[in-house]
């Protein structure tokens, strides 16, 4: 019997360690107990997979330490088994990058090798020339999964052709997009896939050194990467004369990022690697010509590189059978926000947005209405309900004003205010602007100020036009992607939800009842005077005698909404 506990960051947050310890304490005979990465169904964590000796899987969900004894008793714990509808979600996906996540032990290279790991790399160095490798990637049409969707082969080829002995293969694992966590999951669940992808890329472009630039906020990912690099080194995949081939050298190390969203931009990332402030510079020269300490450098994102071993092992056709002509393959999306079944899903490109959110994501929490989905993080935009049939691929999503980006999908219902959403993103980009370009540094601040005044009911009639004008200028006057795309959340919300802006400005109302300056909480006649709200109120703004209708002091009220969550009698109105 093999027992595998889902132990990604999400699993641990849900209590996987305690569950693991409880199973260990049972001291089961003939049981191989181990950790695996995240299978992507974060809403079901902690997950325990039990494989019997025939290899058949029983997957238990929402497991707590108290449930463990029952699972391994003769009676079993069928009530903890995964529901058919949840299992269906897994079957609807096409898992290329996530194929091993949640299945193999990420801390054992043997497990990766057993499922065909490092075979693609062996095939490359034994049977293919670097040009062949690049051709295969070209045939696969693999595009960068980090945001821009740039063809991967093109960058590899450019770096290969660049003169210079010292070339660098860099992996951008500084997943900065709020709302996206697929890279973390790959690093935690299948780190060897990334290393193999880097090895293949390095072979193709002729790089002898690799650097993984990973977020310092991902301690578990860093730990598992360190283990994986050590194992790959011991197994002879990293080092000198790899696999006995004279002159085939590759060294790989990790560099922890220090927290700057702008470092997702290639030249800023390189500046950061060089120990400088992470500020982008003018291109050309492109990193492929002059990158890390002026050497030819190629930068790919984690998900992009994790696709590479599959393509080389199975051929480009195995990859292009999925997805669309211009966006082949699969893409991982992080479903979050007001969605029932949040987590990571890997789907073929081109699947309609509606299917992703309703079939796979299980629809909206508390039976509310879908309002919009935010795609592409701070550089992306909000896609409204009327465009739910848009196929999810690079070309179609861009037409909506959003971008595929790194694959974050934050779902919103009618309680989310779209102006406030735009304000939230501008607050982010304004703080993350590196300050180099005036339009980005000052412009995002000005946009933010306008949005702040709209959400607090002080908007002016001319504000929407002013926003549109400013957005255009910020976009045109910025050097890098951060500034160029920072206006997107504002532009898309104005495009699809202009009425909400107008409501805020002209009527001083927030339709979603979210903007605290524009709403008031009052107590209606349902109140039985239970005093629960008065006790919950953090600023003591609610008064009233027991069994008498209470009242809210509007001056003192900070509109935190505590009362409405506490009230069991539907006695609090928001207007």
């Amino acid at each position, binding site marked *: 019997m093999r027992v595998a506990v889902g132990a990604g*960051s*999400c699993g*641990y*947050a*849900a209590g996987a360690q305690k569950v693991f310890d409880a199973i260990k304490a049972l001291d089961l005979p003939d049981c191989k107990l181990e950790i695996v990465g995240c299978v992507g169904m*974060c*809403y079901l*964590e902690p997950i325990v997979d039990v494989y019997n000796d025939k290899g058949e899987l029983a997957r238990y969900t929402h497991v707590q330490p108290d449930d463990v004894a029952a699972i391994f008793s003769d009676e079993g714990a069928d009530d903890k088994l995964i529901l058919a509808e949840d299992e269906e979600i897994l079957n609807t996906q096409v898992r290329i990058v996530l194929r091993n996540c949640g299945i193999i032990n990420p801390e054992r290279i043997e497990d990766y090798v057993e499922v065909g790991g490092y075979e693609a790399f062996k095939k490359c160095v034994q049977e293919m020339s670097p040009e062949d490798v690049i051709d295969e990637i070209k045939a696969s049409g693999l595009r960068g999964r980090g945001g821009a969707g740039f063809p991967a082969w093109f960058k590899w080829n450019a770096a290969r052709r660049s003169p210079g002995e010292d070339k660098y293969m860099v992996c951008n694992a500084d*997943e*900065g*997009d*709020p*709302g*996206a*966590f697929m890279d*973390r999951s790959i690093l935690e669940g299948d780190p060897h896939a990334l290393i193999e992808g880097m090895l293949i890329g390095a072979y193709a472009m002729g790089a002898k050194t690799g650097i993984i630039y990973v*977020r*310092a*906020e*991902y*301690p578990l990912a860093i730990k598992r990467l360190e283990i994986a690099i050590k194992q790959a080194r011991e197994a002879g995949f990293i080092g000198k004369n790899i696999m006995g081939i004279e002159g085939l050298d590759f060294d790989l190390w990790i*560099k*922890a*990022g*220090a*927290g*700057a969203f702008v470092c997702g931009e290639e030249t800023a990332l390189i500046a*950061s*690697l*060089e*120990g*400088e*402030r*992470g500020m982008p510079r003018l291109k050309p020269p492109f990193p492929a010509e002059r990158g890390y*300490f002026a050497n030819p450098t190629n930068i790919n994102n984690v998900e992009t590189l994790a696709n590479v071993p599959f393509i080389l092992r199975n051929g480009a056709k195995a990859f292009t059978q999925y997805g669309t002509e211009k966006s082949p393959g699969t893409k991982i999306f*992080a*479903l*979050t*926000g*007001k969605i029932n079944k*949040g*987590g*990571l899903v890997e789907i073929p490109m081109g699947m309609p947005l509606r299917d992703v959110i309703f079939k796979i994501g299980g629809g909206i929490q508390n039976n509310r209405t879908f309002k919009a989905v*935010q795609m592409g*993080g701070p550089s992306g935009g909000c896609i409204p309900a009327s465009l739910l049939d848009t196929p999810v691929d690079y070309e179609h999503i861009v037409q909506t004003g959003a971008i595929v980006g790194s694959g*974050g999908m*934050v*779902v919103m219902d009618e309680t*989310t205010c779209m102006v406030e*959403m735009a304000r*939230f*993103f501008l607050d*982010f980009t304004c703080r*993350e602007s590196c300050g180099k370009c005036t339009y980005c540094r000052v412009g995002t601040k000005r946009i933010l100020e306008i949005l702040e005044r709209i959400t607090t009911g002080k908007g002016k009639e001319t504000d929407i036009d002013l926003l549109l004008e400013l957005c255009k200028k910020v976009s045109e006057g910025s050097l890098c992607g951060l500034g160029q795309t920072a206006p997107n959340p504002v532009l898309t919300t104005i495009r699809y939800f202009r009425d909400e802006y107008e409501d805020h400005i002209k009527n001083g109302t927030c339709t979603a009842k979210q903007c605290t300056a524009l709403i008031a909480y009052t107590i209606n006649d349902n109140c039985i005077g239970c005093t629960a709200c008065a006790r919950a109120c*953090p*600023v003591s703004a609610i008064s009233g005698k027991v069994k008498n209708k209470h009242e809210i002091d509007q001056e003192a009220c*900070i509109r*935190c909404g*505590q009362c409405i*969550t506490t009230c069991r009698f539907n006695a609090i109105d928001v207007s």
Partner: protein
Amino acid sequence: MGCCQDHRDEIREDIDLQLLDPVLDEYKGVRGSVIPVLQKTQDIYGYLPRASLSYIAEKLGEKEAKIYGVATFYAQFRMEPIGEHLIMLCQGTACHVNGADRIQMAIEEELKIKDGETTEDGKFTLMIMACLGCCSLAPVMMIGEETYAKLTPESTVKILRDLRNRDHKEVPE
């Protein structure tokens, strides 16, 4: 370094700069090592004491202004000491949509501190983070290495009080 001469001067004296020597030796002559050096410095002191920046600049042969510039550019670096428990509250998109503002309010109300501040007793420091990558369990916060998921204002307050009580109990031992 006139730019950062302020009240931090008062607290810089009791640090032992020699603790940095092994780090500086390790990175001696390594190009582009300012960030890892600063990260390790922060691991040692819990923040970046002003004197450490001058010391690093001197030992790495860099301008002090450059070290200061790098230290203030990145979100990870703190220029002031932090409390015993560092609360990292996620304000990423998913957490924001799922009510992280209310969690922030609850923490601020309970501990009487704002983003970046430390409680008077030196127990808690609050830091707002852009995204912790646990989006499907939003809203989340991390205290130390522990991640707390699906927070409500009530559960947040309870977590903070439990931590404080636990510390109280541990004191007599």
